């Protein structure tokens, strides 16, 4: 298989086997593209992760663009992204098409009545794990609290919150 085919298959594999998405992909990605394929050096992988985290967009898509570009330029990055996206695209399409018909089923209703609060809990968890991970303390806790209240209570778009934080940080040191 040529390099394009390998790029596609490797990222399709990563896309298929990471359930839940996001950072859950990280260990598998490192194993495949650093340890098995030696496409990028371990230090470069750390860089790719750091860049992908700090840039907007979907984390794993960013990493696949970065890796694909390094190996085979623009076409390489396109192939890598297609590999990452396709498994989830096809799986969700199937579910979206089927879910409409299952929606009125009494058991599906019962199941989802209970699944919804559990899904909310799964989002509440990373609030605390991320806070601990990035070192939120008494000094900077006002930032996440203000961001959450602005978006949730006042309905401010997260776009303005992100822009305000970035601009505020750049200008704070200047004055």
């Amino acid at each position, binding site marked *: 298989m040529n390099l394009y085919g390998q790029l596609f298959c490797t990222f399709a594999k990563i896309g298929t086997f990471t359930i839940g998405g*996001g950072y859950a992909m990280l260990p598998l990605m490192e194993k495949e593209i650093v340890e098995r394929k030696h496409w990028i050096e371990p230090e470069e992988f750390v860089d790719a992760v750091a860049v992908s985290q700090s*840039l*907007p967009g979907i984390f794993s*898509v960013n990493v696949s663009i970065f890796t694909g570009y390094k190996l085979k330029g623009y076409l390489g990055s396109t192939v890598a992204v297609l590999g*990452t996206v396709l498994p*989830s695209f096809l799986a969700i399409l199937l579910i979206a098409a089927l879910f409409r018909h299952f929606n009125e089923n009494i058991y599906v209703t019962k199941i*989802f009545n*209970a699944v919804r609060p559990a899904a909310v809990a799964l989002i509440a968890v990373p609030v605390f794990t991320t806070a601990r991970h990035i070192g939120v303390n008494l000094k900077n806790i006002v930032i996440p609290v203000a961001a959450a209240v602005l978006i949730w209570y006042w309905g401010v778009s997260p776009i303005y919150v992100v822009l305000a934080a970035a601009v505020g*940080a750049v200008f704070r040191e200047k004055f």
Partner: protein
Amino acid sequence: MIYFQIFLTYLKIGLFSFGGGYAMLSLIQSEVVDKHAWLTSREFADIIAISQMTPGPIGINSATYIGYTVTGNVVGSAVATFAVCLPSFIIVLLIARAYAKFRENRYVERAFSALRPVTVGLIASAALMLMNRENFIDYKSVIIFVVAFVLTVFFKVHPILVIVLAGVSGVVLY
């Protein structure tokens, strides 16, 4: 022009979502549920649960699902998924060429350090926006929420298992 609206909305989501999957949810929610009313808060919670159990990143999953639900066909899914990836393409390719310079820039460094705590706020707002009467229909919902939270945090139970257990409890409780 619904396809154009979907394209613009997901382009925006791809361009302005920082901090990965969960942090992205607040922006997706504010656009898709609050602004365009393409989905109810209840349907949005369903998608999150489904995303937890299916392969791939939650940003792609939601784009594909919402694109399909809003238009009723595959084209909607493809448009949303393409749009959410497009900004990444442009930005990552620009940055990949000048990575070192980019990271060393004082202002870039400072902006990112401020965005990190904001990410926590984004995730919190996504959770808060979903805590409503649509998703918490009675006291049992609150119990399920607390149990799911405790299982995940203190017993490190895998999210897929949490969703499956919640589903089973739904058949018994409702």
